[in-house]
C-alpha cells in the first residue's frame, strides 16, 4: 500500500489512527506493530514472514550484543556480524541474486550456466530500507549509542513502523530509541504532523505524479515523433518527478510519524538549490547518506587516514550507494558518476566553483544532476543512449514540432510552480504566515483541508478512464 492512495487514506489511515488513539498509552506500541504488519502484509502477504524473521533475528542478536558488550567484546562482535550477514544475505538474495547470476553466466564456464536464475522471485517492497534499519539496531547497541530493547513488541514496532517502512527515511535505532519508550501525543504535534503529511501528499500527487505523466509521454518518444525540445523537457520533468516523489513521500512519513508522536529526521533539504555536487549530496536523501557514513565510511577510516585510503573509502561508499538503488549496471554507473564528480570537487573543482559567480556553480550542479538522472532512469542502457541522442539532435524528426511546442507552452506555469516549490521559499513564507497571527493560522488550516480534497480529487481521477472509443 502506498500513502498516496484512496485505500490508505480512507480505509487504513482512518482505522489505524482511531485504534491507536483509543488504546491506553502502554499498548500503543503493540497497536503500532499490528497495524504496521497489516500495512505491509496488505501488499506483501507472503513476504511479511521475511520481515518477522528479520525482527526475531535482530531482537536476539541485539539482546546478546547488549549482554556481552561490556564483558566479552569478541562475543558481542560475533552477534553484530551474525545480524549483518543475515540481513545483507536476505537483501542480497532478493535484490541481487538474479543480477549477479545472470552476469556470472556471461563468463564461459559451463557450471555457471547451470545455476538457476530464479527470475520470478520478486523484490519484497521496502526491503532495502528495513534491512538497513534493523542492522543499525545491533550496531548502535554494540557501539553504545542505544540501549537494548527488551520489549519485542516495541522493537517490532520500530522495524515495521509503517510511516517509513517502504520508502524511508531510514531511521537509525539510536534516533528513536527514547521515543519508542516514551513520546508526546498532543494536538499541536498532531496538527503539525497533519500539515507535513498534507504538504508531502500534495508534492507527491499534485507535482510528482503530474510531472511523471509528462515524462512518460516524452519517454515514449520514438523515431517518428522525437524532438530535441521534447527530450530535454522530458528529462527536466523526470528530475522534478523524482525529487517531489521521494521528498513528498518522506514528508508524508515524517508527518505521519509526528501524528504518532515520533520525530524523524528530515530526508531532503532543497537539493536543487545546491551549488556543488558535494552540497547536493548533503541535501539529497540525507538518511541514506548518513547511514553509509555512519556504518561504512567512518568504520573504514573515513577521512582520518591517508589521502589514498580516504579516496578508496569514497569509492567504496559510492559504489555501494549506486548499487543500493537497484540491481542493474546503470545504478552502479550512476554511483561511479557521482564518485568522479565528488572526487574532482574534493581535489580542485570545489575551490574553483567558490570563485565563480553563484549562477555558474548552480548551473553546473543542475546539469550534472540532470545527466545523473538520465543514467538513473534508463535501466536499459541502449534505450538510454537513444534518448541521449534525441537530446542532442540524433535521430529526431525536428528540433521541435507541434506536440512538443504545445507541451512546452502549456507547462510554463506548471514548471514555474515546480521550480518555486524546489526552493526554501514556500516553506519560509508558510511559517512567516503561521507566525503572523490567529487569522493566518486558521486560513492555513482551511488551506490544508482544501489541499486534501484536491489530492483526493486527483486520486479519484487517476482511475477515471472513460472508454472514449468503446463504441464508435
Amino acid at each position, binding site marked *: 500500500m502506498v500513502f498516496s492512495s484512496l485505500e490508505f487514506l480512507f480505509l487504513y489511515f482512518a482505522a489505524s489512527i482511531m485504534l491507536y488513539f483509543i488504546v491506553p498509552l502502554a499498548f500503543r506500541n503493540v497497536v503500532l506493530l499490528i497495524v504496521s504488519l497489516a500495512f505491509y502484509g496488505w501488499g506483501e502477504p507472503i513476504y511479511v514472514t521475511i520481515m518477522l524473521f528479520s525482527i526475531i533475528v535482530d531482537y536476539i542478536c541485539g539482546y546478546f550484543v547488549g549482554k556481552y558488550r561490556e564483558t566479552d567484546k569478541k562475543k558481542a562482535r560475533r552477534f553484530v556480524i551474525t545480524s549483518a550477514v543475515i540481513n545483507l544475505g536476505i537483501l542480497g538474495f532478493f535484490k541481487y541474486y538474479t543480477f549477479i547470476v545472470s552476469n556470472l553466466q556471461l563468463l564461459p564456464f559451463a557450471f555457471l550456466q547451470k545455476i538457476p536464475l530464479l527470475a520470478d522471485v520478486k523484490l519484497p517492497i521496502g526491503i532495502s530500507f528495513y534491512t538497513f534499519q534493523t542492522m543499525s539496531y545491533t550496531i548502535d547497541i554494540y557501539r553504545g549509542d542505544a540501549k537494548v530493547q527488551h520489549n519485542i513488541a516495541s522493537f517490532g514496532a520500530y522495524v515495521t513502523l509503517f510511516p517509513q517502512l517502504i520508502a524511508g527515511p531510514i531511521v537509525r535505532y539510536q534516533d528513536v530509541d527514547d521515543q519508542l519508550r516514551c513520546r508526546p501525543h498532543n494536538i499541536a504535534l498532531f496538527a503539525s504532523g497533519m500539515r507535513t503529511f498534507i504538504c508531502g501528499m500534495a508534492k507527491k500527487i499534485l507535482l510528482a505524479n503530474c510531472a511523471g505523466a509528462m515524462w512518460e509521454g516524452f519517454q515514449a518518444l520514438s523515431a517518428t515523433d522525437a524532438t530535441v525540445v521534447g527530450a530535454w523537457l522530458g528529462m527536466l520533468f523526470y528530475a522534478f518527478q523524482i525529487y517531489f516523489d521521494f521528498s513528498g513521500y518522506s514528508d508524508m512519513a515524517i508527518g505521519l510519524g509526528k501524528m504518532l508522536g515520533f520525530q524523524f529526521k528530515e530526508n531532503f533539504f532543497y537539493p536543487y538549490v545546491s551549488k556543488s555536487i558535494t552540497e547536493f549530496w548533503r541535501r539529497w536523501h540525507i538518511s541514506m547518506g548518513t547511514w553509509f557514513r555512519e556504518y561504512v565510511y567512518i568504520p573504514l577510516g573515513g577521512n582520518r587516514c591517508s589521502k589514498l585510503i580516504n579516496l578508496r573509502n569514497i569509492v567504496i561508499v559510492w559504489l555501494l550507494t549506486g548499487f543500493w538503488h537497484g540491481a542493474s549496471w546503470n545504478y552502479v554507473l550512476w554511483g561511479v558518476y557521482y564518485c568522479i564528480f565528488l572526487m574532482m*570537487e574534493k581535489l580542485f573543482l570545489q575551490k574553483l566553483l567558490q570563485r565563480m559567480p553563484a549562477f555558474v556553480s548552480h548551473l553546473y550542479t543542475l546539469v550534472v544532476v540532470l545527466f545523473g538522472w538520465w543514467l538513473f532512469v534508463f535501466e536499459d542502457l541502449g534505450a538510454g543512449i537513444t534518448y541521449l541522442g534525441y537530446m542532442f539532435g540524433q535521430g529526431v524528426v525536428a528540433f521541435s514540432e507541434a506536440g512538443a511546442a504545445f507541451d512546452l507552452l502549456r507547462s510554463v506555469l506548471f514548471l514555474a*510552480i515546480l521550480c518555486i516549490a524546489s526552493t526554501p521559499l514556500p516553506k519560509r513564507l508558510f511559517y512567516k504566515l503561521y507566525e503572523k497571527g490567529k487569522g493566518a493560522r486558521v486560513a492555513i488550516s*482551511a488551506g490544508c483541508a482544501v489541499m486534501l480534497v484536491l489530492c483526493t480529487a486527483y486520486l479519484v481521477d487517476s482511475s477515471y478512464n472513460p472508454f472514449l472509443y468503446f*463504441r464508435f
Partner: protein
Amino acid sequence: MDYAEKDIQPIPTGVPAKKEKITADSEAARYLQMQMHLKKESRGADVLLILLTLGFIYVMAILFWVLPDADFSAQENRVLASAPEISAENFFSGGLTEQVSDYMADQFPFRDFFVGVKAFSETVQLKGQNNGVIFGSDGYLTARADYPNETILKTNLDAAAKFQRAAEKKGISCTAAFVGRKQDVCDRYLPSVYGSYYSDRIWGVLEDITGSNGLSYLNLRDPLRSRAVDGEAVYYKTDHHWTSLGAYYAYVQVMEALGGAPLALGAFTAEEASRDFYGTTWSAAGVKWAPPDPIVYYHYEDDDAYTMAIQDNTMQFEGYAGCTYKERDGKQYAIFDSFYVREFLEKKDQYASFLGGNFGYTHIIKNGDGDRQTLLVLKDSFAHSMVPFLARHYDLILIDLRYYKASMLQFCLENDIDQVLMLYNMETLTEGDYLKVLQAGLGKGE
C-alpha cells in the same frame, strides 16, 4: 529539541563541509519549536485543521460504506468495479489488493464531482488539456492523438483496394470515402502551436498508399475542413463525431461520387432533438462546466415511410417505443419505423439515438417501394448521422466489420447489392485492421 552537532554532520563526500548555519534538521526543529511555542495561541486553528481533515476522511470513509454501489458509469461508458470477493486464496495471490484498489476508486462517493475538481485544478494551472483532451477555443474539446499507426492504415487500405477491384469486376460500383478526425477538420479551434498535429502528414501517407495500391477514394476531410474554417459547426464541440450538418455536407459529396443528385438542405426540416448532448470528449476532459451541444435531426416529407431492422440478439431495445422484435433464421431483429431511437436522448450517449448505436447489421428500406437500388454501407459510427440523408435515395444495408465478419463480396452477390460505399473515419482506419476481413473470399490473385 536541540540537535547535537553530530546529528547534522554532512555525508561522506570527502570534502570538509563549510560551517553551515541551517541544516534540514535544525530548520525542522526550529519550525517545530515555533509551533510548540505557539501551542496555546494556535489551539483553535489546530483543532479546526484536525476537525476538517479527519472529518473529511471519516465522512468519506463512512459514505463509501453506506452509499450503494453503482454498476455502470454513463460518464465513462463502462462497467464499474464491484465489491471484491474476500477469500484467503484471493488475498495471497495478491488479487484482492488490486481489486480493493479498483473498487475503492470506482465506487468513491461523489466520484464525478472529484473528477470535475481535478479538471478545474488543471485548467487553473493553464495545462491546456486534461485526461488527454485538449481545451480548444470556443468550447471545442478534442482528443489528443499520437501520430497514427501507418502500418495499420496500409493494411486497411490495401484490403479496401482489393475489394474495390473485385467488386467492380463483378459490376458492382464501389466508392470509398474517408472522413477526417476532429483534429483534421476543426483544427482552427485547437491551440495554434498544436494545429492539426501531423494531420497533413497522415493524409499524405493515405494519398501515397492509395496512389500505389490503386484505391480510388473520396476525401471528406478537406471539404468539411473548409466549412469549419468558415465557422460552421460541422463537428460536435463535446464529442468526436460530426454533427448532422457535417454529415449533410459529406452526404452531398458522397451522392455526387455515387452518381446521384443530392437534395438541397432546404428540402429538410430541422428539429432540435436535444439541447444537452455531452459527448465523449466532454466526459474524458472532466470539464463539467463546459456547455453541451444540440443534436439536430433533419426530417424529410416522407419520413414515416421507412423501416429499420437491426440485428440484435441481446434484445436491448425491448420495451422501447415503436420497437418490435422479429426472429428470422434464429436471429433477433429489432424493427423500428424511424432512423431515430429517441430513448437515447434521455441517456448520456445521445449520439446513439442515430440508428440505436453500433450494430453489425442494419437494414433500412422504404415501405412499398421495391424499385429502389440497394446501397451497402461498410462503415463506422460516423455513417449513422448520414443515414437520414442517404436513405432518401437508396435502400441501405449497413455493415460494421468490427462486429460482422463475413465475405463481403459473397454478401453483395447474395443480397443483390447495386452499389457499395466504404465510409470510414481516419481514427478507425488507423486504430485496428478492421478492413482486413474484406479480403475474405476474393479468390486467388486478389
